[in-house]
């Protein structure tokens, strides 16, 4: 029995390592941690009318995104940081060029509202559950179904019924 348990443990360990490696290795091999033109260009919206970011504009010879990407490349080459490059373009074209709202003034609402809504939803759940629990029967006896059903506590009639239903369903 012990050998079987060991074998199971080893198989499980091998499975874990295989899964982790399968998922992690291609990522690690491809990883490139430096700030790229693409990453900065993601922060800017293309003004050619495509509706995409400067990074993703799909017009092959776009008159806006192509020169802007070259300009970003040069600016990063001169040692400017990503935020500095973004700030430069914001100064030149205004707020509309940013691909995400700023975190100031009215725009902060864009960022806060989704989480505020989820918190409000959570509060509503807590309130509703509180009301449900107030008229729920006292938690006694075994849970209805699921993981922690303790087979040893079943009375014989319940066990017979369970086995009958298991045969039907499983």
């Amino acid at each position, binding site marked *: 029995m012990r050998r079987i348990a060991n074998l199971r443990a080893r198989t499980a360990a091998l499975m874990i390592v295989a899964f982790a490696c399968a998922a992690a290795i291609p990522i690690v091999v491809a*990883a490139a941690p430096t700030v790229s033109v693409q990453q900065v260009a993601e922060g800017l919206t293309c003004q050619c009318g495509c509706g995409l970011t400067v990074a993703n504009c799909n017009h092959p010879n776009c008159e806006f995104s192509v020169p802007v990407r070259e300009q970003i490349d040069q600016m990063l080459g001169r040692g400017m940081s990503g935020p500095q490059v973004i700030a430069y373009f914001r100064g030149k074209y205004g707020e509309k060029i940013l691909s995400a709202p700023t975190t100031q003034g009215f725009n902060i609402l864009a960022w806060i509202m989704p989480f505020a809504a989820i918190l409000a939803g959570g509060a509503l759940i807590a309130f509703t559950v509180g009301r449900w629990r107030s008229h729920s029967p006292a*938690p006694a006896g075994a849970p209805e179904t699921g993981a*922690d059903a303790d087979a040893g506590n079943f009375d014989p009639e319940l066990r017979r019924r369970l086995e009958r239903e298991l045969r039907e*369903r499983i």
Partner: protein
Amino acid sequence: MPLIGQLALALALVLAGYSIIANVIGARASIPSLTASARHALWAMCAMVTVAVGAMWSSLLHSDFSLEYVASYTSFSLPTIYKITALWGGQQGSLLFWTWLLTIFTSIVAIQNRRRNPEIAPYALAVLAGVAIFFLGMLNFVTRPFDLLAAIPADGQDLNPLLQNYWMAIHPPSLYTGYVGASVPFAFGAAALIVGRLDDTWIRSTRRWAIFSWFFLTLGNLFGARWAYEVLGWGGYWAWDPVENAAFMPWLVMTAYLHSVMIQERKDMLKVWNLVLIGMAFGLTLFGTFITRSGVISSVHSFTQSGLGPYFLTFLILVVVLYTGLLLSRVKQLRTRAEFESYLSREAAFLFNNLVLVGIAFAVFWGTLFPVLSEAVRGVKITVGPPFFDKVNAPLALALIFLMGVGPLIAWRRSSFDSLAKTFASPAIFGLTTGVCAFVAGLREWYVMTALSLAAFVIGTIVVEFRRGVSARRHMVSESVPAAIVNLVAKNNRRYGGYVIHIGVVLAFIGIVASAFFKTEVKKSVKEGESFQVGSYDLEYLGINTTETPHLESARARVEVRRGGKAIAMMEPAKLFYKRLQQPATAVAIRSTPAADLYVVLAGIDDQSGLATFQVFLTPLVFWLWAGGFIMALGTVIAMWPNVRERAVIAAAVRASSPLEADAQAVPGGD
């Protein structure tokens, strides 16, 4: 043909109107012959719209440029397959196609309910006919597909090159099927509210329709993403564009609904919430159409912009007001004495699952509309693009994946900490070890490590659940493990189909996270015979082949891909030029493997210098997004598959009770 088509649409409108009146009066006055007549009218309506669609297809295939629609979206040289798909390539055609699907589904519902649901079905059919009236009204009076041109042009204007792609042949039909499919459970929900039959009959009667709709919404989103990946040439598949968002939101809400109805079926709880969810899902399908066609929000996908926005907005508001009023009028009757014992229960896991799913849908909705709000309040036009959606949704996605692992294993009613520890120990260890292994392998991005750990945790819970089922079967019946797995899934297809869907979601999630974090890009200009490196691949530019057809010219570069000195593939990215439209386009070349996709774009050719410019993306694990999507589809098919036990229950119920009761029992609970 145009005259036949227009006449058929006019008749369909009249028949839809008649069917509403006959259904409502027939149901209220209990006149079965009148409700039968209403059903016949719906079938005739479907036949009329089919005639109109046939007329349109005939005109498209015969290049009848006397029709404005045919002249606007096709040309003589357009390949036949795209003449067929041009039906949904433009405004009027896509509305006609939508209406056709709606009338087909309405007819099927009418057939399914000939002898079932005598209380609810007439009203559900009336609601569906009401929706059809809106679309038929648009087709008859606002945006007529069969309008003729005063002067017949020598050739048509051709279809937008971006739509001349096989994914575009299947993406819109899938998405529309999903959208229109959602109207069936909505109609039954509304009918249940009208009639006051507020038990779960409407849910059980439309469970398959809901899964069917979800299945096609999943495929529609997936095909759309694949289209963007192959056609737009930027190496990505999802840009959080308003139109993409419009397709994603109903999917999220339908996902919440499919989970939430399980609680109502099992515990008779969340009656109001389920009606709210299906109302939201249907409203969001209309909202999506409004966005696509109104031009209120600029989008790369808005191929059919027009002045239809106000009509869709009015209809959307009307639906929301009427449905909300109906719901509020029944709130008291919908209240049940719900029992809830503990937050450590499956009920709680499902509640939080719904909170997160609807939370994500709200975040997407809010981000999509915020530019309009900003312009209205501040007068400043801003953009809400991928960085916003990525940042807001990233933590919510982790929460959702975590709940996906917890939900299926936790007990109904309540669990103790001890039992939780026992149940979740193996999956939790599996998840944590995966995270540690990823760290040891060199990964440092905390989000990716958390995502991998949670993905492994979910896979672990599904393995535990399968192992339990298989052990139970082998304990009862002596059979091999593969046979036990097959029989387990076959006998409990709804439950295990759900687990297969979860596996698909996890794989797609891994693909999304890896491609979002680790996509690399190389742009290089090279001459014939020169090579450049991308990751571990060497790419050698061998030259250009040019071809010409009556429809387009193409310049196709030949690029040999080598790895470790060994040639492994020949890739042929191309630049296309559509003659009729005088428009250039790009055809990317993709070499996809489970480890990474090599994605090559021919960005430019300089005839003078002989330089060809290539933009190459190396995207790890993105393969798993598509594979995961198809596993989700497979799981949905398993969950929808008719079950022998289920049929036996239906047959027994039909024998033992009235037709109405039989239908209420038609689909057993299960998980």
